[in-house]
């Protein structure tokens, strides 16, 4: 008698995940970006933070053997800027997503597990945060504070947790109703113990998958803010590269090489995160959870079809089955 292996464990997750092509592509894209960011000092031909002597020919110089992707308005090497720029995007993405998921996860678990007035209050708050447009609010806050790297991370983090909170809450509600939680209560376990030992381990995989999606949103937000000129002026980032290119005449100069690399960079990382996140979500979809005794694994996978679709069975599914 085999019951389906639960997909809720990290190990089971990775096993099933390796079968998801989209997810694997996303993982590879993201890993490549991370490698590039980590080894930027080794890979980049120039140091973007080193002062350069500017001559008129070096501004918006087209790609050449010396500057594979040309130069920008300050005569800096675009390829090097691009490589270093990925660092800011990824740092902001990861840290902001971490903050967002930590806040959202906490709120989601607290609301889902404790329920009652606490839940009503927290979810109302979440709904309000959800309908407030993030970007204008972020612009206002960044403009009022200093646009330093950590400020931006913090602001993106505290504005981006709503989706996570709702997701984690619903998962918590599901896990909370499972019998082993009642059993732990019956044994005499307190709330914090149950959350730590029974709720969190089962919510965590979902949070991991969600984090990846939040990273892509955070990177987009950072790029948008930077494009609007709200970024740490001392750091090179993709959004900032776009901002400079736009405001300093790259378009009119026909310097596509100043625009395309940061744009593609953003697309690359965001796509990677999205694919990876979707792949993980697909794996985590709780539809495989079943404990019917009668038949083997593969039949269990089908029993959902049978169970839900007798009405359909009569119309289309007979043939399909």
């Amino acid at each position, binding site marked *: 008698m085999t019951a389906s292996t639960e997909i809720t464990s990290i190990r089971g997750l990775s096993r099933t995940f390796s079968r998801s092509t989209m997810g694997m592509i996303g993982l590879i894209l993201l890993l490549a970006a991370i490698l590039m960011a980590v080894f930027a000092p080794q890979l980049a031909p120039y140091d973007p933070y080193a002062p350069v002597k500017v001559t008129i020919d070096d501004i918006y110089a087209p790609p050449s053997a010396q500057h594979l992707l040309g130069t920008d308005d300050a005569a800096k090497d675009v390829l090097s800027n691009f490589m270093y720029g990925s660092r800011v995007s990824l740092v902001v993405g990861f840290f902001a997503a971490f903050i967002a998921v930590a806040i959202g996860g906490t709120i989601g678990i607290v609301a889902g597990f404790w329920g009652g007035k606490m839940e009503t209050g927290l979810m109302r708050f979440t709904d309000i945060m959800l309908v407030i447009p993030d970007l204008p609010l972020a612009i206002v806050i960044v403009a009022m504070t200093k646009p330093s790297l950590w400020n931006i991370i913090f602001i993106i983090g505290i504005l981006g947790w709503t989706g996570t909170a709702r997701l984690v809450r619903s998962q918590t509600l599901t896990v909370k109703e499972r019998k082993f939680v009642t059993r732990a209560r019956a044994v005499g376990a307190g709330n914090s113990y149950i959350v730590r030992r029974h709720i969190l381990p089962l919510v965590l995989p979902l949070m991991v998958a969600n984090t990846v999606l939040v990273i892509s949103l955070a990177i987009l937000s950072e790029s948008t803010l930077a494009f609007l000129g709200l970024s740490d002026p001392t750091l090179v980032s993709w959004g900032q590269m776009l901002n400079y290119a736009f405001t300093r005449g790259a378009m009119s100069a026909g310097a596509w090489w100043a625009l395309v690399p940061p744009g593609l960079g953003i697309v690359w990382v965001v796509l990677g995160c999205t694919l990876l996140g979707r792949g993980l979500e697909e794996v985590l979809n709780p539809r495989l959870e079943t404990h019917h005794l009668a038949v083997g694994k593969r039949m269990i996978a*089908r029993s959902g079809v049978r*169970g*839900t679709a007798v*009405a359909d069975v009569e119309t289309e599914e007979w043939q399909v089955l």
Partner: protein
Amino acid sequence: MLSSYADTIPLTEAPILLEVRDVSVEFVSKQKGAPAARAVDHVSFALREGEMLGLVGESGCGKTTLMLSLMRLLPAAGRIVTGSIEFMGQDLLDLTESEMSEVRWRNISIIFQGAMNALNPVRTVGDQIAEALVRHGMAPTGKKSSAAGRVGDLLEMVGIGANRANQYPHQYSGGMRQRAMIAMALACNPQVVVADEPTTALDVMIQAQILELLDELRHKLGLSVILVTHDLGVVAEVCDTVLVMYGGVTAEYADVDTIFNDPQHPYTQQLLNAFPDLTRPTARLISIPGAPPRLDNLPPGCRFAPRCPQVFDRCHSEPPALHRLSDGHLASCHLVESR
């Protein structure tokens, strides 16, 4: 209401409607190189007109797989590798898919387990039954509206009342949903109905209502019924013949009286001992140690050998053949060979 159902004798003179011969079903493993798992191994039975056959066994004994093969509704990984399934002289395994879909529902229909999930929650029960009628050409004009009369009749027949056709499944109780499922299965006047655990998860009183309904319909409509269940009590109450399956093979096949009063296979005997009998309460039930075998890890000899109290050497090495004890009594056990 006082009633006593199943006081009928097995209709042994009636013609055979459905004959399953030597059917084996394999499931192909997704992992490369792994051998196919044989879920059903050379199982045969016959169903006569108006007869109720009980298909009994524990989890994983292959009873559900066997019924799905009958309908040719096996999941993609499943294959019927040997045997034939003859319905009124026609081998169902020879039919094309579209011919088979004609047979399904019009000749053989199925009542699924778990009526709760089997009905679409956002459509009325009447609408769902009407759809089945339209789909199988049972509505006079081919429109759902023209099937309303028949839908009403069907609901009346299962004791729901035509006036509730416009209600949604959630407005029905568990027992009524199961009745609605029966109405749906009867929509196209099939000759054979397969009822897959129709009363599991229902309370005893509701179970009694459903069993009585099934029995009544069987007599009124001359239906043949295959009742898939793990509940021996239910089988004793309503069935004429019984097929006991264990680990994908036939353990014993006989009429209901023989199975309960003269069982020959040790598994049948043990199962009966393990079943609580209200009329003979004892302090201890006899239990069968161990668990049923897994399909991917079947014992080499008799599949029941690891749990059998009367096991001897030969059982571990050689699978027993299906022996004929008398007319209509088969058992697969080395012990009955000499008899």
